[in-house]
């Protein structure tokens, strides 16, 4: 399992079957505060990298969730829709946002690993 990170504070975990799971990082949920609503993408819709694929709303603010890679949505987290606070309490596991079928797995190569992402947070 490989987890990569975007400068917009999404994480993406690649699976062996050509799909990947996307969520927001611990840092992102901490910066947002209490999450009260998530707007998830439609299954079957395709996105290019950096396109807005969802919205996460905290008590104070709304933030866009960007698609990290080129691909098609194959599953969304209904559990998160029912309990948006999962994005706060378990952002890397139960609080995942959606699963995507990768069109170009090579896109992952250019993304940050956890060390590079930690450096980004330290320097921002």
């Amino acid at each position: 399992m490989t987890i990569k990170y975007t400068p917009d504070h999404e994480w993406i975990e690649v699976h062996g079957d050509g799909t990947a799971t996307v969520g927001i990082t611990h840092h992102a949920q901490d910066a947002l505060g209490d999450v009260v609503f998530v707007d998830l993408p439609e299954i079957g819709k395709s996105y290019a990298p950096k396109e807005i694929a969802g919205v996460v709303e905290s008590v104070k603010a709304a933030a866009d969730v960007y698609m990290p890679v080129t691909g098609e949505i194959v599953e969304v987290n209904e559990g998160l829709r029912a309990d948006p606070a999962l994005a706060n309490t378990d952002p890397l596991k139960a609080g995942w946002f959606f699963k995507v079928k990768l069109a170009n797995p090579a896109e992952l190569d250019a993304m940050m690993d956890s060390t590079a992402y930690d450096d980004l947070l330290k320097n921002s």
Partner: protein
Amino acid sequence: MTTLLKTPLHALHVELGAKMVPFGGYDMPVQYREGILAEHRHTRTAAGLFDVSHMGQLRLVGPDAAAALETLVPVDIIDLPVFKQRYALFTDENGGILDDLMVCRRPDDLFVVVNAGCKVQDTAHIRKHLSSRCEVIESPERALLALQGPQAVTALSRLAPGVEKMVFMDGGFFKIDGFEAFITRSGYTGEDGYEISIHERDAMAVARLLLDQPEVKPIGLGARDTLRLEAGLCLYGHDITTTTTPAEAALTWAIQKVRRSGGARAGGYPGYAVIDPQLPNTQAAQPSPVQRKRVGLVSNEKMPVREGAKLVSAEGVELGTVTSGTLGPTVGHLVAMGYVASSHAAIGTEVFALVRDKRVAMKVAAMPFAPQRYFRG
């Protein structure tokens, strides 16, 4: 880049793990570790301590101070009893609202609290118009704490016996464990509670004494905003501005009969010619209709509707704009306030908010959304 000012409690906020944000020119705590929802609920069930030292505190001194202040606000100040506080509005010549404020008459002065973001303009406005009639004394050396919630009385009366005898909008001088304080039984959360004005050198000690009480937790500006919105209270610069008149803003209750046409001291404040015809008055004439009104809005949808969202009718006709909105942590559903065309201001009217590419069904509703629990004796 402007340097952010710090209140006397800044170091305490940092020590308590607050997330600090710029607000009204100050570096202020938006939330502490538990987060806005927990802080909101704690204030509704126990007692929350807010640092509101960024707000402006002023004293107007002299026998003519009350009459002088009445030239700037459409509010009855002259008849305000000693140790009573009242909500007031600075208005402009066009009938717009320059700021909202609290005024308390004390034996030797009028004690005035204004919003942080407006205090420089407010002070200049007061000095320009009132300096010839009373002494205008800014009090930057004063800190201001708000202790709010159903257990505020229990916590504070332990340290300052006697505060439990006050009722809503009373004020009085007290000692908190030896520290001199001017305390009013008021606040801006819809809960029973107190605002406590103290010297900045005592602020840290008094704040720690309050936080040592088992009922009390520190609460940030994030929860202050959701609390005041559930209580149906306006935030200056958002729900009321220079483009809204008191009648449009549904604040006619703040204008006493004595200042309305037919009253003993009618008018004499900026914007009277615009504001007064919009008020029900003692001469029994129908108030002239306003084109739009501030209303409360509720929804069972889950997606938050925030400031700036357009409001439309079922037919898609534009009706107005949301000025504040959130998921009400106590009431458990969406609450908002905003301006709609008067034709759609009746309670129960269905409207739609436009959020991104979606229409959110909302209903005009009575405010406050959460019951006010002021202690009236």
